[in-house]
């Protein structure tokens, strides 16, 4: 089912569920409907909505919640007597499947509803759902499965992925109602004075104060948590009267803090909340009538979803303000309007062949009632994720959990899953317990709790951040100015400080690339300028900047590819503007560096943003010759990408999650670290060992596949190269940096690529130390 937010999707399905139950003459006891949501906060909302129906109609239909917060007592109660309706998360379902006798629990289950499927699809949590459904369908072949999804580019595919390839009919129900979205870009008064590079946008703070004042409640979305903390602080400094009416909300704050903010929002007590994607989803905050997006929204679907947080009532207009953080980004306001008008909405790319999740699932089943290989294989190949898994690959997974790989050594002491009468089981309680703690696919960095001395929890920060602080140092967190007192058992104890200074924590984590829908729209908007057709307010504002680009370099037409060359004291730069998003640019930059280094050995430093990328070297870069040699060739592409150093590094980073999900590396449990230390190795070690001794390890291959699909966006990268082949290349030698290349030049995040041997490189680095 697909409809805009605020149109009553929950009730549309829930009354069907109730009808299905009460239409029966003989009603069976036990679990009847399972409702899965991606968020605990959302679970609560669904719980209150559905419970209200039972209360007001006086129905004999019990509903309960089960999430990570559910008490042990409540779980025991549920185990004895399951309610008819259970609202829960993908992880909790897997924990139920890890309980002995789960067959009995799900015996009379008739309906599964997967809420916000578009959010889960495209993540490994989606794979958890696919696997859980395959097992539940085996228990109840007549199971009805509902998916609820916001509008995405591949809705039909989303439906098919959810349902799998088994028997049965399916239908897509789409609402014809459309949500009105009004976009207003907050523009600097003088474009000439607005910075050419930056991520924060604080210079435009004055522009958002009137929005806050003229609205009932405003949500201010930032892209990352550190930006969220900084904006909250700056807003309070600029407008101290907001104290008490301004709140902060992001994923690293404690559940208590977040709940308080959510309730206050719901009750209309707040004037504004500075937040991250933590408030993207679900929960209905009726008082919100304005939304501000700070910095590039990166994707159309995400922007629409955030806009939809305001005017949540049917028929109401969603109003969203866009605050660009540097001048070129202004174009995105115009591009966004274009993409929404033309319904250019991103697809969600699903994970396939996630062997790490499959291995975890196998062990989950082995610790409850065990499984038989043939039966399980036939179930999992009916899911979209594991459709293409061969029996040999499945057998490899079996060997991985029973023999620890394909070892044939008679003296091997590997012990995890054992086979008793053809049934795969875990017999060791220690193995079972450790596995239960490891169920799930969300892997976090090593985190420290932040607590007041009195015991109140504020949230979590990454270990590396706290490790740089000494007791007495002051930092900002959760909107408070805090002094570090001491660190004990993975907890940092703090007290409030009045110093008013201090560092802001930052959290590592992937940065989203600009989607191809948005980059397409940007190219169209630039072209309109070229053809003197620019009429959007953003485009008109940008004319002085574009004129300048035209003057110092060139403003590319849609059929042109601009390459700029510059020589600074850092070295020789080549900038390429392909407008393909930072992921593709990361791939293209290492590919180009590799191909250029074939002409002569050299080491590059690579930089990239969403609009283009940079190659920097201490020697002149023979770009013209590289173009003649076929720089944009799509032949030998995979081989060339694999040959570049970076892919190994990228795969190593992906492997971190894979190693944890598949149980090679134990997850981080604050306070419990000492017990597991002697079997704790980092994922890098496993990556190295598998690379050296077990090249065909499926988990290792999975890491590389994930890099190609999600990091390099291989499909998009090939399209980009093909487009470049058809474009006219314009090379400009710059006297001074242009508005296009400056933001890339100023980026601090850089990668390196070298075709020199490791020890040669290290020796040169050591020599440079002496200089």
């Amino acid at each position, binding site marked *: 089912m697909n409809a805009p937010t605020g149109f009553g999707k929950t009730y549309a399905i829930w009354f069907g569920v109730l009808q299905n139950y009460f239409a029966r003459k003989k009603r069976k006891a036990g679990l009847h409907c399972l409702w899965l949501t991606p968020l605990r906060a959302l679970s609560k909302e669904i719980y209150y909505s559905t419970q209200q129906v039972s209360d007001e109609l006086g129905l004999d239909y019990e509903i309960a919640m089960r999430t990570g917060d559910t008490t042990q007592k409540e779980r025991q109660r549920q185990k004895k007597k399951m309610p008819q309706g259970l609202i829960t998360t993908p992880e909790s379902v897997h924990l139920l499947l890890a309980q002995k006798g789960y067959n009995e629990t799900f015996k009379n289950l008739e309906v599964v509803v997967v809420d916000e499927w578009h959010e889960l699809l495209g993540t490994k949590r989606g794979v958890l759902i696919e696997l859980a459904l395959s097992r539940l369908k085996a228990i109840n072949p007549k199971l009805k499965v509902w998916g609820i999804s916001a509008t995405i580019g591949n809705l039909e595919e989303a439906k098919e992925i959810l349902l799998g390839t088994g028997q049965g009919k399916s239908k897509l129900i789409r609402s014809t109602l459309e949500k009105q979205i009004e976009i207003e870009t907050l523009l600097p008064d003088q474009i000439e004075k607005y910075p050419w590079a930056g991520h924060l946008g604080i210079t435009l703070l004055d522009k958002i104060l009137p929005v806050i004042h003229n609205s009932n409640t405003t949500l201010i979305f930032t892209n990352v948590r550190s930006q969220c903390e900084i904006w909250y602080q700056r807003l309070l400094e600029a407008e101290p009267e907001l104290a008490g009416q301004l709140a902060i909300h992001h994923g690293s704050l404690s559940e208590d803090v977040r709940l308080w903010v959510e309730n206050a929002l719901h009750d209309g007590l707040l004037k504004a909340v500075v937040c991250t994607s933590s408030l993207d989803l679900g929960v209905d905050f009726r008082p919100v009538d304005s939304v501000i997006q700070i910095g590039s929204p990166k994707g159309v679907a995400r922007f629409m979803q955030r806009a939809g947080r305001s005017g949540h009532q049917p028929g109401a207009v969603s109003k969203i303000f866009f605050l660009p953080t540097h001048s070129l980004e202004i174009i995105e306001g115009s591009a966004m309007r274009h993409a929404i008008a033309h319904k250019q909405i991103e697809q969600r790319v699903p994970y396939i062949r996630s062997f790490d999740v499959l291995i975890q699932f196998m062990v989950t089943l082995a610790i409850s009632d065990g499984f038989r290989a043939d039966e399980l294989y036939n179930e999992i190949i009916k899911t979209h994720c594991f459709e293409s898994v061969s029996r040999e690959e499945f057998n490899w997974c079996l060997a991985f959990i029973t023999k620890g790989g394909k070892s044939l050594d008679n003296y091997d002491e590997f012990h995890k899953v054992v086979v008793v009468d053809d049934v795969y089981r875990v017999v060791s309680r220690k193995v079972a317990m450790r596995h239960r703690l490891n169920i799930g696919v969300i892997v976090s960095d090593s985190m420290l709790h932040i607590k007041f001395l009195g015991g109140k929890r504020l949230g979590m920060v990454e270990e590396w951040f706290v490790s740089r602080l000494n007791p007495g140092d002051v930092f900002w967190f959760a909107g408070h100015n805090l002094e570090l007192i001491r660190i004990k058992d993975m907890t940092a104890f703090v007290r409030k400080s009045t110093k008013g200074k201090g560092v802001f924590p930052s959290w590592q984590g992937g940065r989203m690339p600009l989607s191809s829908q948005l980059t397409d729209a940007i190219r169209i908007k630039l072209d309109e300028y070229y053809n003197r057709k620019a009429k959007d307010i953003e485009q008109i504002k940008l004319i002085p900047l574009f004129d300048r680009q035209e003057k110092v370099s060139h403003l590319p037409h849609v059929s042109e590819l601009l390459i700029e060359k510059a020589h600074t004291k850092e070295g020789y730069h080549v900038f390429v503007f392909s407008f393909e998003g930072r992921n593709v640019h990361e791939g293209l930059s290492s590919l180009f560096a590799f191909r250029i280094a074939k002409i002569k050995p050299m080491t590059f*430093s690579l930089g990239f943003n969403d609009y283009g990328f940079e190659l920097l070297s201490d020697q002149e870069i023979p770009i013209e010759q590289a173009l003649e040699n076929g720089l944009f060739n799509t032949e030998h592409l995979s081989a060339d990408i694999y040959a570049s150093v970076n892919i190994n590094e990228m795969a190593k980073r992906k492997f971190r999650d894979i190693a944890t999900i598949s149980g090679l590396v134990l997850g981080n449990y604050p306070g419990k670290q000492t017990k597991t230390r002697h079997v704790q190795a980092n994922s890098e*070690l496993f990556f190295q060992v598998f690379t050296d*001794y077990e090249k065909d390890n499926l988990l290792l291959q999975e890491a590389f596949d994930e890099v190609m699909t999600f990091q390099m966006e291989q499909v998009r990268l090939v399209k980009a190269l093909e487009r470049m082949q058809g474009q006219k290349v314009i090379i400009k030698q710059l006297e001074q940096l242009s508005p296009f290349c400056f933001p890339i030049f100023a980026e601090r995040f850089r990668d*390196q690529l070298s075709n020199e041997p490791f020890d040669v490189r*290290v020796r040169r680095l050591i020599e440079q*130390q002496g200089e």
Partner: protein
Amino acid sequence: MQISLQGKPFTLLHEKALYNNDESLLIIADVHLGKVNHFRKEGISMPLNAQQGDYLNLKQLLDKVTPKKVYFLGDLFHSDYNYDWHHFEALISCYTDTDFTLIKGNHDFVDVEKFERLGLHIVKDLIEDKHFIYSHAPVSYEHNKLNISGHIHPGISISGRANQSVRIPCFYLKDNLLLLPAFGTLTGLYKMDRTASAHIYVVLPGEVKKL
């Protein structure tokens, strides 16, 4: 690489070991043999042959240096007894003329008797002579000798122009403490500080270089 410690000649070996020339004493820290099997027993699949490199490296080093004495500065055998012991036994029995001593570390849980049956001397905390204190973890009391220890797995990050950087193992000498790099291949690195008072000798393929 030759260096002088407390006025005595020593060799820093790129095989990640230290050699006391006067006493024909080879010093090796943190080998972590048996780690693969220990992990496997716990249901964590590391490839069985991943440890072979360690035995090979150890054998080649002993053949090259032919020391009279060997000190293992702890964490020789990772946790309790497992099948890897047989490989270790086979290796040690080839060197009947060498005198092996193990200073016990926090991961050495194998029975003392098992080691002694192989002719190894077991020392609980440390060995102290006129100039040096050999221990697993750095000693915590005041002294005026040089403490040679393992346990930390020191490594250093080197960065250069154009944002390049690498992480490599090192010998780390600061005040009266010399930390040895971990010998075993299945070990991680602990990133050390680059303070001015520290002498850092990085381990490269085929050589040791002072920073």
